[in-house]
């Protein structure tokens, strides 16, 4: 169990998340993939905190940052789901190509 192993795992999880975003058509499914990616990022924070602690302070900064990141994810999911519900209400479905107001 080394840092590079952890990072490889994290990048693999991230890549899986990207795959999910690119291939899923349901917005909720896309949200799930985004959660995966966020999770991967958190893993990186924790790994670095474990193997490369910062020299100043108690060495807990990585974990603290991960906590913040968790909070952000929560916020994102809340807003994201609200949008999903809005799209569903508007179109009766949650296919991602329905939310295409930005398209010219």
């Amino acid at each position, binding site marked *: 169990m*080394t840092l*590079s*192993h*952890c*990072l490889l795992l994290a*990048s*693999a*999880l991230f*890549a*899986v998340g*990207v*795959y*999910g975003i*690119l*291939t*899923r*058509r*349901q*917005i*909720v*499914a896309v*949200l*799930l*993939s985004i*959660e*995966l990616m966020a*999770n991967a990022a*958190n*893993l990186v924070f*924790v*790994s670095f*905190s*474990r193997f490369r*602690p910062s020299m100043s*302070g*108690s*060495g*807990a*900064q990585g*974990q*603290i940052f991960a*906590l*913040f990141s*968790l*909070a952000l*994810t*929560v*916020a*994102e999911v*809340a807003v994201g*789901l*609200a*949008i*999903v*519900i*809005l799209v*569903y*209400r508007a179109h*009766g479905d*949650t296919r991602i190509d329905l939310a295409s107001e930005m398209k010219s």
Partner: protein
Amino acid sequence: MTASVGFGFMAACTLVSAIFVVRSKNLIRAALWLGATLLLTAALYAMLDASFLAGVQVLLYVGGISTLLIFGVMMTRKHEGLVVEAETVNVPRGVFAAGALFGGVAAAIKMTPELDSGVRPPVVTANDLGRGLLIDHVLAFEVVSLLLLVAIIGAVVIARKRDPGAEVPGFVRRPLAAKASSAKPVANEVSP
């Protein structure tokens, strides 16, 4: 050594469950698989001496977000039942992108030789985290709390059921808006 085997096993499990998240044909199952992935990640955190974070992960992610997402899935399904179809399109593109990304990052990791030469640090306790959050980073902490508040209110406002006829308190429709639209730049009124 045991730790390595354990880590490898856990990592493999995590990856497999993550793949199920993105490949499952049933959205509810996908959401459940996400819960599993998150749970496994929590275990990984514990192995990485971040037991507090592991606890938070279980509480927040597995307990909170997964549940929330399952609710989201249920509320937006088209038919009653426990099967919510999840289509998968453009698979080659996804494989290519994910592969390229993983390849790129993995190569970068591999080409960074001094990664695995750290010394073992002192264990971080919940005490340290508490001090860090409430003393060193208290401003950021407060800002995040504010952000969460905003997100909650925002979510409520966005998902609010709008009755087109009803006046929503605090949101007076001013006749001004109609006039202001006439002041829009001409460029918007492009003839086809």
